[in-house]
């Protein structure tokens, strides 16, 4: 029998006197700044490539187009925090836009609810968002499927309200949102800015925001700490719905008429924007401000590509590549740990 002699100490002491850092410390890394860097590089690149890009009017354009996406993406970000996904924006916006168009002063009926009508759009958003959360937590259907279903429901209801005829809205306040300009920016852009700030405050200072973040970090720990998980999941989806509702309101203002397909493409763009901004699809990382950077990256990309003469067909492909690259870049350092990716 050969027993290898055991050293006197039970365990090798740490070589340094101070506490050794085993943890993968979460410090600021390049990846955290990459979205901002991408935004700067793209902006400079397009500014050099095309003089029309670097005009003040174009800045107004970019921000006005980014506004709705920014609002919707704030909502999406909270869902992504949890490691869940939300694909219901198009449907929620579809119903929201139609409900708004019918309730405010319009060309179809005699309704003239004004602000109450606009508030109804937000209520529609919250209601659908809550529905998402309830389906997820009570019927236990994964968020991917639950929200896709809710989106279809929303589009269906919207189409019913649409009834084959577009409705123009004439409510002065609503239409004014997209026409009134201060310092060259429309009111829509300011509302979006307010929404982003509100989102950031919710993320930082409310229990819903913090718990959404924590659910993505370690859901089991919260459960073992006695946190009412399903309640907070429903709150988060309802909150997201509120932002989609606001997005619907702004879209209605911009379009001036009720169109069911108003939110078309937002499912992809908002998730793409959040991801490009550095929000991890598996949850627990990112933030409202990061997502907003992502929105700006996509907006600059879209605007710049048009100005340098890339056709809108190719643009979508470029957008797709940008998203894949962004996801790869954010998950590259931890790709070994991600294990099976489904």
């Amino acid at each position, binding site marked *: *029998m*050969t*027993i*290898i002699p*055991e050293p006197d*100490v*039970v*365990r*090798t*002491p*740490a070589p340094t006197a101070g*506490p*050794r*850092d*085993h*943890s*993968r*410390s*979460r*410090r600021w890394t390049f990846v955290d700044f990459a979205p901002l860097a991408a935004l700067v590089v793209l902006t400079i690149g397009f500014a050099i490539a095309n003089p029309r890009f670097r005009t003040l009017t174009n800045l107004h354009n970019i921000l006005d187009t980014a506004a709705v996406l920014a609002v919707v993406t704030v909502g999406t970000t909270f869902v992504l925090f949890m490691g869940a996904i939300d694909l219901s924006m198009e449907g929620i916006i579809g119903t929201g836009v139609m409900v708004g168009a019918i309730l405010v002063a319009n060309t179809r009926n005699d309704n003239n609810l004004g602000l109450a009508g606009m508030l109804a759009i937000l209520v529609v958003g919250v209601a659908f968002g809550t529905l998402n959360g309830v389906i997820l937590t009570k019927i236990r259907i994964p968020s991917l499927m639950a929200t896709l279903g809710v989106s279809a429901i929303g589009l269906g209801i919207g189409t019913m309200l649409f009834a084959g005829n577009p409705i123009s809205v004439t409510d002065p306040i609503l239409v004014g949102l997209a026409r009134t300009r201060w310092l060259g920016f429309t009111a829509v852009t300011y509302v979006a800015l307010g929404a982003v700030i509100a989102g950031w405050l919710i993320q*930082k*200072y*409310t*229990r*819903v925001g*913090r718990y959404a*973040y*924590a659910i*993505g*970090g*370690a859901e*089991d*720990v*919260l459960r*073992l*700490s*006695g*946190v009412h998980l399903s309640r907070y999941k429903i709150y988060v989806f309802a909150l997201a719905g509120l932002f989609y509702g606001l997005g619907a309101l702004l879209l209605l203002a911009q379009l001036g008429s009720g169109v069911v397909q108003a939110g078309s493409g937002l499912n992809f763009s908002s998730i793409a924007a959040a991801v490009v901004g550095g929000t991890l699809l598996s949850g*627990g*990382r990112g933030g409202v401000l990061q997502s907003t950077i992502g929105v700006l990256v996509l907006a600059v990309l879209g605007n710049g590509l048009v100005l340098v003469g890339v056709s809108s067909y190719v643009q979508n492909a470029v957008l797709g590549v940008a998203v894949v690259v962004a996801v790869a870049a954010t998950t590259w350092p931890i790709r*070994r740990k991600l294990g099976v990716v489904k």
Partner: protein
Amino acid sequence: MNAPDADVVLAADGLVKRYPGTVALDGMSVTVRRHEILGLVGENGAGKSTLLKSFVGLVRPDHGRLLVRGAPVALRGVQHANALGIAMVYQEQSLVPNLTVAENILLGSEGRSVRGGWYRWKPLFAAAQRHLDRLQIDVDAAARTDTLTFAQRQMVEIAKAMAIEERTQAEPVILLDEPTSVLEAQEVERLFEHVRHLRERASVVFVSHRLDEVLALSDRVHVLRGGRSVAEVNPQQADVAELHSLLVGHASPDSHYHLEQQDDAVPTQRRLVVSGLATTTRTAVSFSAAPGEVVALAGVEGSGREAVARGIFGDAARTVTLTLDGKTVALRNPRRASRHGIGFVPAERRTDGMIAPLSVAENMSLSHVREFCRGPFVDVRAERKAVRRWVDRLGIKTPGLSTPIGALSGGNQQKVTLARWLLSPDLRVLVLDHPTRGLDVGAKSEVYRLIRDLAAQGCTVILIADTLEEAIAMSHRVLVLKDGEIRAEIPAPADHKPAPVDIVRAMV
């Protein structure tokens, strides 16, 4: 021993908990007194973690009583246990990494620092810092948890557990489940200081695989075996060896190991040469094994034996380089290992070893389905023929080859996962991680026979056994690991099996 009952803050009285196929608690009786540190020791499956889980309401015992300060209670869950002043520091660290320390400490019971859903960060940080300061833990409550070291996180976990003090009238009972497994020696010392400090205000239950630590820290030690407490030990009067002999018990050598089949003449050639296989970032092991040899890896949890087993199968963070029959092979992933004729049966059969909804046939052919493929198509008939052969030869009891494997008994499931590698046209090394875990005696015996047959056919078997006894009985050689290194190499020929105590000495 005859302490007045008033001193008992927490007691398990004849707890019984059965799971399908196993008995986790079998009349477990343990008492925790005021202001004491109670050590719990036991091998895997002795019932330690089930006992702890029933103390915090995660497991509901089938029979028996749980008494909290003399009153019988049926715990409804963690919250209920917390309300009664019982909190657990979990083995796998249970902090939310992307939150601040303060949020973690007060998670779910933020009290007045969150008003109407809005966080008031200053009071929150102050409240958490108060908890930390009281335990003299040098951590900033505002720090993000994932910037802390493991040792610091462990302290934060204790602070989190102790935070229930404010919510209950009584002094808390803190359960520490393997708190030292990831700590360095000096960090362990610091943790112990904290725990001793804690004793003035709380009772502590301390569970560890490290017997020396248990003896050093505890006021009293319960030795658990087979789901019950078999001895109560005074640490002042016991040493590690004594504790361990109590731990292992006096199991009689069983005939079901098929010792008569153990081939003593192990060839001198080397089938597998492992050199410098990393077990942790700082440690590595080297050894070799002959064709037909069964090498058992012994060691406590965290000794690195799992890392060795998975490493040989190429399931490691880095590419593993081995010498196989004189040829150097680089195993970047398990697929490579499988191509080279290395097989692996993981410990967690239900999650890692099989795909429950798939059929017996699909599960068995999983790794070698290429053998039955014609172009892109699976030749189902050839597959079934091969599977049928092994089902017959191993006597796998299944209603049919298309039956989902989840419907089979544990023993038959395990035979299917083993047969997966027998389908290999060129199986050279089979790594078995707890191949008999959760099986009844009869099924165990059949798995042992299969291992003997494989060895007789010249396959090298690397075995992590369920018990020390199994390791000794089944192997030609026992490698004893500790702290990621091989501490002893003990031959175990059929006619001269080593005594468990010799191996234990190197293990602890």
